[in-house]
């Protein structure tokens, strides 16, 4: 695919992504307007019931007395300038809050995804189309991980590997080992699906004539699997991983809660439960942008792995 057409399709996707982002923000904004609860009352906080005058003051302070459409336009205008507003509950820049959580979450998510891939690839490649004991083990392992709520997996991992065996700390965040169990919790949520999908496409590839051709060249079973068939599982695997990565916040919320880790998940739950509209919108924007970005990357990677894509479209 020539560079120019890559750029054209890239810019088209980015434009589309911006539209999706804008849609998402608008939808969420609209959603949150219907959610019950007076933001002014939340802003006031405290023990005592505020008077109407006090509420008025707060509303003026935060521009809540304006009509909804004005608030929306103001929000979008600020957003275009990179201003995400200020959290109601924490009275801090939303951007600062998100920034404080985003790296921890990204590290956790990436570690989880990498671990999932590291487990799934050999599991799928070695067991595709075979009926060995390993295949049976893989079958059971995948089904069990698919069937367990991830918070339960997390709790069991903590109990066994942190509190009982003391292999992996979860408290000392500076210790890289503390990432192992949370990453494993995220990974186990993906491993089942990922390796099943990969195995299916590897098995499909193994039935293709080019595999027979490869074998006829004297390649060993291993070379055929790793050298030829594995690559054919890339697209479905990347699709699943892309969807998962876009939706990684879901896994992260649970994992961060169970492990008491900082990050966007923790911020999300707090933002929603306290009805902190600017913060919720901030989280939505960040995760939707992440989703859009990941999917653009995944789409582009298709073309890199399979040259037929892009030239045929």
């Amino acid at each position, binding site marked *: 695919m020539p560079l120019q057409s890559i750029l054209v399709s890239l810019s088209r996707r980015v434009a589309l992504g911006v539209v999706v982002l804008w849609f998402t923000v608008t939808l969420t904004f609209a959603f949150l307007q219907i959610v019950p609860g007076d933001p002014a009352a939340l802003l006031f906080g405290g023990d005592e019931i505020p008077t109407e005058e006090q509420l008025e003051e707060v509303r003026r302070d935060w521009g809540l007395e304006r009509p909804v459409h004005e608030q929306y336009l103001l929000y979008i205008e600020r957003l275009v300038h990179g201003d995400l507003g200020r959290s109601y509950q924490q009275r801090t820049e939303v951007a600062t809050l998100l920034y404080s959580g985003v790296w921890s979450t990204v590290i956790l998510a990436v570690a989880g995804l990498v671990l999932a891939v590291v487990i799934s690839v050999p599991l799928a490649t070695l067991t595709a189309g075979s009926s060995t004991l390993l295949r049976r083990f893989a079958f059971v392992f995948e089904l069990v991980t698919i069937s367990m709520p991830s918070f*339960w997996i997390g709790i069991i991992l903590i109990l066994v590997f942190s509190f009982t065996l003391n292999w992996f700390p979860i408290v000392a965040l500076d210790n890289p080992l503390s990432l192992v169990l949370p990453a494993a919790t995220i990974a186990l949520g993906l491993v089942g699906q990922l390796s099943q999908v990969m195995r299916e496409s590897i098995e499909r590839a193994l039935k293709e004539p080019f595999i027979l051709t490869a074998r006829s060249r004297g390649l060993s079973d291993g070379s055929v699997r790793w050298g030829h068939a594995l690559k054919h599982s890339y697209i479905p695997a990347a699709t699943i991983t892309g969807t998962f990565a876009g939706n990684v916040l879901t896994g992260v919320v649970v994992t961060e809660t169970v492990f008491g880790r900082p990050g966007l998940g923790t911020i*999300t739950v707090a933002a929603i439960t306290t009805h902190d509209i600017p913060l919720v919108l901030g989280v939505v924007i960040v995760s939707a942008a992440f989703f859009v970005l990941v999917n653009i990357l995944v789409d582009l990677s298709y073309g890199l792995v399979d040259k037929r894509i892009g030239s045929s479209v």
Partner: protein
Amino acid sequence: MSRDNTNNAVTNRLSARPKRLSVAVILSVVFLVLIAIQVLFPEAIATHSPITIDPLAALQPPSREHWFGTDNLGRDLFSRVVHGSAYSVSIGFGATLIALAGGIVFGALAGFGGRWLDQALMRFNDVLMALPSILLALVVVALLGTGLVNTLWAIGIGLIPQFARLVRAEVLVVRNAGYVESAVGFGFSKTAVVCRHVIPNAIHPVFVLATISIGGSILAGSTLSFLKLGPQPPAPEWGLLLSEGRSVIEHAWWLGVFPGIAISLTVLSVTVVGKSLQKRYLQKES
């Protein structure tokens, strides 16, 4: 020479390969039947009332009297699990039904509605997909409040994009299938073709996805319960039981183990059945 019987032999060999049900599928179906009985007749199976408290019998380990032990108020855990099945199963089915209905409407409109409607709907779908499902669920709960029915909506809405995509893709595939063109060639009207051929043929994979997403919905429900955003106590919903049991798992392991096993076995069974349906219906066609 009999008419082309060599070819015949080949096709017969391919199509007549016996598809036996595996032990896993049989066990799963049996387990799901048990769950169905629990849902329909919980009183017949439960040994105790699920809500009667008995402070003197609190936190007893599993015994002949209390098969799964008792919780911190002395309620019989087995009976709570039995009664809770209705909640979890309703979440699984309810959310899937919502997703199915929404997905078919969206997907079919996009698949048949022409280019612009398709583009608009699919962009909207992208938006729903870009919203992490947990956020969607959290917002829905914030909007509607907690409780079983709201949980079900919270999960179901999040699943719609998946179904819409599949329905649309299937409709597009089937729409271009040879038999649709052939029906047109015989002079059937567009409506007749859609009703007779497109929908019946597009719906199979959708039902398979539905089966699998029942399990996913049960898991999602338990996650919402864990975040205290699902059904509220004293409902014996499994996720809630598990969530409540987790803090005492070191002292009363049964509270953290049996509800978890109930969830996992149910989801596992649904998944096994779904996968087997997928094998039987989808791979045969491809």
